[in-house]
């Protein structure tokens, strides 16, 4: 049973409550669902709603997105328009009014599509803790989480150059459905061949993963069907797929190359 819901009005207070063992809550889409089913496993909740962690700031190509910025705010941000398709593939507009960017980092796959994007964007996660603040690479946070008592305060990312951002999410339904395979990528080309590639995958492992094997295949080669198919097959080395209510591990593995290719070629 929940004995307290803290609503700290500063990051320092939030860190204090978190350090005391409170479960952090952003928009409540995960935590409150657990409260309602009696499965939260912590008697105390620390809501970040009033901790001053909202807002989206953009300075040139660099964006800083507050941890409690909602997915709707990202969707409506003109500077982050490249993320709009990705955000709109998450749940429903109503849930996007509640779910937060910080919370999305901690959602288990096959949910957490924005986290897949942040991995492809090589974002930096700002973390506040009892000993001060630090910046952590998003892949580290996605793999290991943050330490007890730490609070994610923001995410920093570079807006990719036009034409270098790719996203595709395969779902069982057209809207509001978890990822079978999500592909997010920043891929730069020059002289008709790929010069750099960061590809992140969702839906195919317990956490978002980099498709490093696919990236290696692409470097120095054109974004063409055969190359992408080869990259997609290579990406199978990077995944740890699972069965769930939506699809089997077999199916996810089977269609991964298809969706990887379609992320680039439609």
């Amino acid at each position: 049973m929940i004995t307290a819901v803290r609503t700290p009005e500063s990051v320092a207070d939030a860190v204090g409550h978190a350090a005391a063992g409170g479960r952090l809550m952003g928009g409540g889409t995960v935590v409150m669902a657990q409260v309602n089913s009696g499965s939260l496993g912590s008697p105390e909740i620390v809501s970040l709603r009033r901790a001053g962690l909202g807002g989206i700031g953009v300075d040139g190509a660099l964006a800083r997105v507050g941890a409690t910025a909602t997915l709707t705010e990202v969707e409506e941000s003109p500077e982050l328009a490249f993320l709009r398709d990705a955000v709109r593939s998450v749940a429903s507009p109503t849930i996007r009014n509640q779910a937060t960017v910080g919370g999305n980092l901690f959602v288990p796959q096959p949910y957490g599509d924005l986290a897949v994007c942040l991995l492809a964007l090589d974002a930096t996660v700002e973390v506040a803790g009892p000993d001060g603040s630090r910046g952590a690479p998003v892949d580290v946070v996605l793999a290991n989480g943050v330490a007890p008592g730490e609070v994610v305060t923001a995410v920093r990312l570079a807006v990719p150059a036009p034409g270098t951002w790719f996203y595709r999410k395969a779902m069982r339904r057209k809207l509001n459905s978890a990822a079978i395979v999500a592909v997010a990528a920043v891929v730069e080309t020059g002289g008709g061949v790929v010069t750099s590639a960061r590809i992140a995958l969702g839906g195919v492992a317990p956490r978002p993963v980099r498709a490093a094997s696919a990236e290696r295949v692409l470097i120095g080669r054109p974004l063409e069907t055969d190359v992408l198919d080869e990259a997609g097959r290579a990406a199978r080395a990077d995944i740890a797929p699972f069965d769930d209510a939506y699809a089997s591990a077999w199916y996810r593995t089977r269609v991964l190359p298809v969706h990887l290719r379609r992320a680039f070629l439609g």
Partner: protein
Amino acid sequence: MASQVVNLRVNERSREFLAAPGTPLLSSLRDALGLMAAKRGCAQGSCGTCTVLLDGRPVMSCLVAVETVDGASVRTLEGVARGGDLDEVQSAFLEGFATQCGFCTAGMIMTAEALLDRNPDPTRAEVVEAISGNVCRCTGYGPIVDAILDAAARRRKEDAAARRKEDIAARWGTADIAATPGTADAAARRRS
């Protein structure tokens, strides 16, 4: 920690009530305030039957810890009809046979209200996306989408009529406004 006093502005009335730690907004609306229109269909944010407007945005009220939104403004289906008159969304659902069992209706209507507040002339695709978090097991959704589009058309028509009256009033005085109560009010209400 004991229950806390929470203040909300609900359907334009200030309400004060007690909430135990972790109480969802939905439970406070239903159990503390007696507003039963919003339903509990899953308590997991997966069905949309509990949708209400929180500071103008639709939310799944089962996922909102009520203590964290102290001072916020909430609108529920009970606050939609004014003076006993159905609004355009309600009328469109009623006349369009967009209800069957009725359990999803409150959430559908509130989601539609929020959509039309922001987007008076939505495309079919926009309506479809707006209600993508609301489950209906009876209708197959078609009549609901039709009703929301119909409501948008009714509201635009009514707003246009109200604007015409306001223009006339601005030029010629308010005599004819009094003869047609409601229309100007309705438009002004939504633009505010």
